[in-house]
């Protein structure tokens, strides 16, 4: 069940209206801009954001928006440039203004933290009384449904505010939890991605308290209407009529008017399957076409590390810490052991049948690509890369040649790449196995991610108390070996300088 809690933010509402007006104006000549998908991605990120920092002008999201060039590119398509654009048409500035407004005073975060304080304070006083006076189920714990990006920030804020009995759970884990366990929690959500998560929440027996901006309520209503029509379709189904003999007449739908901006946000998710949907909620950075790289230099060393803002490293106390939280003077270990083989062996041992399939599917697309590279393109990587790009594959040449054709990469990151290879090669076997390859790719990636996470956890435990974990044990790695590998490959280093660099996501080697 969903219970909506509306948050009013006047400044934000005004800015969104302005955004909508400008976007509509840009449809006209001489701009002819229909839609800027990247901007809707960033807009949803902003509406979901619960980060607040009045001291900063440049949140990570603002940096990414500044770096994104899709608006400029679309202007250029019709010979316009952002420099000569009248200020009332500058959509980028409005989006940045929205971003700054939210980071300076995040009403969503404020509301949620007030609720948290109220819940956790009242619990202490009321809990004894409640247990005597009320027989009903007590909710003396709070659970916040979060994502990979916000998780650490939330944890920190909770610690800073000395809030007790608050737990953070990532979306994917949350949907797997048993409902009986959830009964004792007051559950907080602060975003609604679209219909899929709506349906999950709506069909739970526990209440999900969704904190949304008042204008986001229409998003909820739109989902509710969709749900209603789905039920009506079932109620009016031929099968039901056949079984029960009762005809059902659906009442007319309740009309809701939705702004173009919200409509675009809803439409973003329209073609996502469940997996893509859950991945996008779990890891909002996934959808971003831009990346912030942190270049970390160390005292007394020439080499530097280039890490993504959401990567984690070990600090002096062996805690895992986000790269974007690092400061000059911190001592860190960067986790970069090459345990790929080890993970693969472990996975194969656990699920040998599945992994034989995966090997087969991995070989299939790689063979077709290599064959094409050698025979059709006569080793002209430029030409092959050009054709792949034309089919929507955005990766570096070096990825295609060194990792896909000749390297260890089992599967490319996006499904598009395999589709493109099929479209160019028209290889029958590849075409017939396409769906199975995609399935194998997903199993492989998710297994590797979860094993990788477990391995990192094992290394953390080893660093803290010297114990060898299950994966290490299975692969006969002793304490001495691991100690040696860690000392050699990930020694503790002191940070001398941190600088950031923005790049396009496609410019990272897969």
């Amino acid at each position, binding site marked *: 069940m969903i219970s909506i809690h509306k948050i009013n933010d006047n400044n934000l509402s005004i800015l969104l209206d302005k955004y909508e007006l400008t976007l509509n104006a840009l449809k006209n000549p001489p701009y002819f801009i229909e839609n800027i998908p990247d901007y809707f991605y960033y807009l949803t990120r902003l509406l979901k954001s619960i980060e607040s920092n009045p001291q900063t002008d440049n949140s990570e999201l603002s940096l990414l928006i500044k770096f994104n060039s899709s608006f400029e590119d679309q202007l250029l398509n019709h010979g316009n440039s952002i420099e000569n654009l009248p200020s009332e048409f500058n959509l980028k500035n409005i989006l940045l203004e929205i971003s700054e407004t939210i980071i300076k005073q995040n009403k969503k975060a404020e509301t949620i933290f007030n609720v948290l304080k109220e819940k956790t304070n009242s619990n202490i006083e009321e809990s004894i009384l409640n247990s005597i006076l009320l027989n009903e189920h007590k909710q003396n714990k709070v659970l916040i449904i979060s994502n990979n990006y916000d998780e650490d920030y939330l944890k920190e804020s909770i610690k800073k505010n000395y809030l007790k009995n608050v737990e953070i759970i990532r979306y994917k884990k949350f949907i797997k939890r048993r*409902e009986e366990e959830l009964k004792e929690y007051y559950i907080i959500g602060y975003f609604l991605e679209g219909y899929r998560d709506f349906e999950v929440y709506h*069909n*739970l*027996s526990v209440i999900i308290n969704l904190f949304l901006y008042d204008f986001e309520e229409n998003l909820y209503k739109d989902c509710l209407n969709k749900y209603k029509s789905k*039920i009506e379709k*079932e109620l009016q*189904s031929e*099968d*039901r009529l*056949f*079984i029960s003999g009762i005809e059902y007449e659906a009442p007319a739908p309740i009309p809701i008017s939705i702004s173009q901006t919200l409509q675009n946000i809803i439409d973003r998710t329209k073609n996502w399957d469940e997996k893509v949907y859950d991945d996008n909620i779990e890891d909002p950075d996934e959808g971003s076409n831009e990346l912030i790289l942190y270049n970390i230099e160390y005292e007394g060393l020439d080499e530097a590390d280039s890490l993504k803002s959401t990567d984690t490293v070990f600090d002096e106390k062996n805690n895992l810490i986000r790269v974007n939280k690092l400061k000059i003077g911190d001592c860190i270990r960067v986790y970069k052991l090459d345990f790929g083989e080890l993970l693969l062996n472990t996975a194969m041992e656990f699920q040998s049948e599945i992994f034989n399939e995966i090997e087969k599917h991995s070989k299939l697309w790689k063979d077709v690509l290599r064959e094409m590279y050698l025979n059709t393109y006569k080793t002209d990587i430029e030409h092959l890369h050009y054709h792949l790009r034309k089919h929507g594959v955005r990766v570096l040449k070096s990825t295609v040649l060194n990792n896909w054709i000749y390297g260890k990469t089992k599967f490319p990151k996006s499904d598009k790449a395999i589709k493109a290879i099929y479209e160019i090669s028209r290889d029958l076997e590849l075409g017939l196995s396409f769906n199975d390859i995609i399935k194998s790719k997903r199993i492989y990636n998710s297994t590797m991610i979860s094993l990788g996470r477990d391995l990192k956890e094992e290394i953390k435990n080893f660093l803290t108390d010297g114990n060898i974990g299950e994966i290490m044990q299975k692969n006969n790695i002793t304490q001495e070996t691991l100690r040696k590998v860690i000392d050699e490959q990930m020694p503790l280093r002191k940070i001398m300088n941190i600088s950031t660099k923005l790049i396009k996501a496609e410019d990272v080697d897969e």
Partner: protein
Amino acid sequence: MSKTNGFDIIIKIPKYFYKILDELYSNLYLFIANAQFYENYMNPEFNLGELVVKKVGKKNRKYKVIGINERQITLVEQKKESLKDLNGPATIYVDRKNIVKEFVPIKRSLKKGSLNNFLQLFSSLNGLDINEDYFPTKFGIVTIFVGSKKIFENFRNFTFHDIKGNLYNSIPCYYINRDGKESDTLGISPLLYFVSSYRIAYQQIIKNKIRVCNVVLFGDGFDELQQIISDQSIYGFRIIGICTTQIEKRMSSIKYWEWHKEEINLIQSL
């Protein structure tokens, strides 16, 4: 429950109505068991070499059929090696007309209590007299249930008000695990099979030419449905399903009824 009339159906109930689901699972299990019992209620045959036990009386005596002629059936008592007496095993001659009143064939040694559970349940469901009437214990037509072991184990919690046994230990059923290993609830040939996946059922039951009347699916993961439907055209069983997650796409050959929580809540509030 024969396939000649009626239709195949799948009913979806949201997962968290677990009490309703439990009741549906157990009632359907009981209902089908009894229908299946009735379906197998035909002329009893006793075969040479078969093990039989006495239906009535406190003693749990096991015999083997060693002779059959027009009038009589000859039984020899089966005892453990350590209990054998010097005079050799007792041989008894039972009138063919009376044998079904006194004896039932079994698959292996079983406790008196287990046999009583079975007899009591089916006598109370069908108004049969344990002392007089025939109780089939060999079943030529069976039903397969596909679901998690948890659902199956949960039948132990389903009890009857006037009978000692529970749903689990009163109905002869074989559980077959993923590796094909069988275990039974009673020492009687199975009336029902419970398996964790249809693949197992196909390999161990259907392929072995055991006649299957119904394939009943419980819980989530109806991912084998396409296969089941294509096998249905060969083997002619009925498909019944109680599912908790939406099936991927509706099949024209199976009626589908999805209960929404709004409807169930409404009915429960009446």
